[in-house]
Structures are given as C-alpha cells and as structure tokens.
C-alpha cells in the first residue's frame, strides 16, 4: 500500500467532482487516497491517515483500506464500496428501484423499467449507473441497456453486493 500520487489523486477526485460538485470530500470523509499496485492494475482505496505514521514495513507490502475503484487505461472506474459511498452523498448517476427489484438485483438479475422509482435524468443507454434500493442505499453498479421509464429491461448488473456470497 502506498499514498496516491498527485496525478492519481487528481484523477480520482476529478471523477467525483465531475459527477457532483463537492462529492469528492463527501466520499473521502477525511481519509487519504492510497494505491494497491497489482499486476492487473492500480486499486484505489480509502485509508486512515494514521497508517502513514506507522513504520513503513508494516504497510508498504500490505493490503488495506477500503477499495473504492481502480485506475486502468488512464481512467478511474468505480467499484462497489465507492458506489456505496457515492450514493450516500448524491443522487447523480443513480437509479432507485423498488423493494422487489432490489432483491432480484442482489441475485444478479436485470432491472425492468417498471421497477424503477426514480433516476438521474442525464443517464443514457450505455452509461454506468449506481443501482440503489428504495432508501437510496447502493446495491451495486449496472449499465443502462434500455428505457429507464419503459416496460422492458433497463439496467444490466455489473457488480452487486450479493455477488461474493453467491460465489461461496
């Protein structure tokens, strides 16, 4: 684990600020951005600043922090817990679904337009979105595949909070 460079920090905070002004501060809540360098890319985590005051050999070769996304191909991509933090602070890029659809989504099922209670009006087909339950709490990340107000399939799941448990 290492502290994010200036460029990495700018990339990540820029992502959140582009979604909603002031969002980066709300997502980070006083934590530092840190990086886990993996063979398949740079994972971005939120870490408590207290870590850096400890001897370096405790954290330099360690995993840690809360994974919120990754940097790949020069861009920041949100991961599940990044979506959770983002949905707690904004409705931008969010699609709010009804209770029954929440359960289906957590089993990896697509969302139908009729199950959508509200959504960010700027979302278009092909856009990534954060799927939330009736209380606005993030359930996962999807991609818009159809009309968000129509009868048919509207959102396809990419990542959801139930997937790890399904994999057990």
């Amino acid at each position, binding site marked *: 684990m290492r502290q994010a460079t200036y460029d990495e920090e700018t990339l990540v905070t820029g992502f959140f600020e582009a979604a909603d002004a002031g969002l980066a501060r709300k997502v980070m809540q006083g934590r530092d951005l840190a990086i886990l360098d993996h063979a398949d890319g740079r994972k971005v985590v939120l*870490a408590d600043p*207290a870590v850096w005051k*400890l001897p370096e050999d*405790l*954290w330099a070769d*360690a995993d840690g*922090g*809360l994974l919120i996304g990754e940097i790949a191909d020069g861009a920041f991509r949100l991961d599940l*817990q990044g979506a959770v933090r983002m949905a707690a602070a904004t409705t931008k890029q969010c699609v709010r679904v009804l209770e029954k659809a929440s359960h289906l989504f957590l089993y990896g099922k697509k969302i139908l337009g009729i199950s959508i209670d509200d959504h960010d009006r700027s979302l278009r087909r092909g856009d990534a979105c954060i799927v939330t339950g009736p209380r606005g709490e993030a359930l996962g990340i999807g991609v818009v595949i159809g009309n968000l107000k129509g009868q048919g399939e509207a959102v396809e799941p990419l990542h959801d*909070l139930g997937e790890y448990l399904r994999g057990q």
Partner: protein
Amino acid sequence: MAEALRVPAGPKIREWSRKQAFSDWMVARWARIIPASGIDGGLPQFLEGIRRRPPRYLRVNTLKLSRDQVAKRLAARGFTTARTPMDPDMLRIVQAPVSPGATVEHMMGMTTPQDLASAAAPLALRPGRGAVVADLAAAPGIKTLHMAGLMQDKGAIIACEPDEARRRGLRFNLERCGITSAVLRAHDAQSIPGAGWADKVLLDAPCTGEGTIPKDSDRRRGKIEEIDRLTATQADIVDAADRILRPGGTLVYATCTFGPEENEAQVQRLLERGYTMEDTDLESCGAPLGHGLTQWGDREFDASMKLARRFYPGIHPTLGFFVARLRKEDA
C-alpha cells in the same frame, strides 16, 4: 511448555463420554476446570449446553446504523430480536424467517453474525478512536469489525492473516462493512515487524477450540496432544505481541477453549515479564462469568488471574471463551 495435564476419567465420566461421543480425557478436565473457575455445581448445565447450539447473535455495524434502526429494519422482514445486556451493539435472534446472511442488511454491512462471548475480547480491549491496534489472528475479521466500530473507524488496525483463503474472507467482511482503518498483512503474527508501535494488541490465539463444540461436533473427539502442539504456537505469538506493544499498552489474550495450558499458562508468562492483570469489566452474561484459575495440577498462577473471565455453554448463552486483559509495564 509443560505437557497438558492428564486427568483420570472416573466411571461416570467415561460412561457419559461414551454415550455422547466425547473424548473422556476432555470431559474429565472440564469437570475440574469449571468448579475451579468459581462455578460450583455447573457441570450438568455445561454438559447439556456443550451439545446444543447457543442462541444466535448479530453484531450491528454502528458505523452504518444504530442497533435500534437495524432491529426495526429486521422486524420489517419478520425477524424478532432482543437486546443483550453484555453488549449494547448486539442483537440476539429470537426468530428468523431467513438466514440473517441472506438479508439486504447483511449484504450492506449493517449486521454480522457473531457469538456473544467472542464480543468479550474487543469489549475488554476497549480500543478508542484514533488508536493503533494489532489484531494478531484476524480472520474472518469479526473482531476486527467490532474494534473498527468501537474506534469509529479512526486509527489503524494492523490485522495479520497468513492463509490466503481466510484473508479473502477477511477482506470481504471489511469491505462489506465499509472499514477504512484496517491494514491486512499476509504474514503470520510471529513475523510482524517492529517493536513498541501498538497502543493495544488483541490476541485471539489459535487454539483447540473446545468452546466451539456446540457448533462443530467434530471437535468432541480431540486428541490431547493437540494442546501441546498449540501451546508452543501460542507462546510464539504471545512473544510477538509483547514485542510490538508499547510500554503502558493494553493486551487482551483470548481463546475459544477451556484448557488452562492454552489460557492461564500463556497469561502467566506475561505476568512474569511485568505485565499487570486488569479488570475486563465483564461480570455477567445471563449468569456470573467464571474467573481465571489460580492453580492447575502442580502449576500455580498469580492470584490476579482471577480477573480473567470464562464463558461456558449451557451456563452462559454463548460458546465457550476465555478472555484476559493485561497492561504492559511502563518504560
């Protein structure tokens, strides 16, 4: 380390053990341990309880919601829960229409199944906001989560887990619950670097796990030689804990087993290095808790060992557990 004490099993114990498929050496030892820990006449209740699963509990992640908010959400799903006097952030499951792990609340990190006795270790440690804590045998992370909650996720928890599969489970739990303060080391506790950097150390030591027999009946037929093997490992980890803890820091030693070789004997080694026993502030869990033993076979332990606490299935509504809180000598 001295060999585990062999206690002869009388005919009643041998008969009971044979009928219930327990190792009689284990039951003979329990028959001595329980009264020695201040619980007179508790053996029959214990022998009932060791064969039955205790009540189930859920830890509420207070970083996300309060206990009462979670109780309300679960009630809407048909759960009945109750408070637990020992831990204000735990709910006892009275009735569950589905597995708690299948709920949206669990997936969102609001709840985690945890036995009530194991909550005793973080409660005894009392890590505060901003502390630097070492969790020396962390997976699957239930106590790590508990400590992060007590710390309001501020500070650092250095969690050790060398097994890759167990570390994946630990990572998953920490992410599920939104924890930012944990650092996960893929090495065993004995190789943790440095000295004197931890404010507090939680050592929930690898052990023979006799206290988990109610949920893992395979452990009924254990071998006494396992105690000898594990006490050597426990001693090594205790040495590492001593090294990394700062002078004046707090160490909680805990196991989910009953044998004094794995409990009081390990704590005694620290007392002989100048550590002082402190009160766990845990007195009761449905019934008064057992205390630490001051003698076992020909071994004498310090009188202050009575400040350690013991949980017994059937006597307490929990799995079995041992917990001791110690303070390292100031520099």
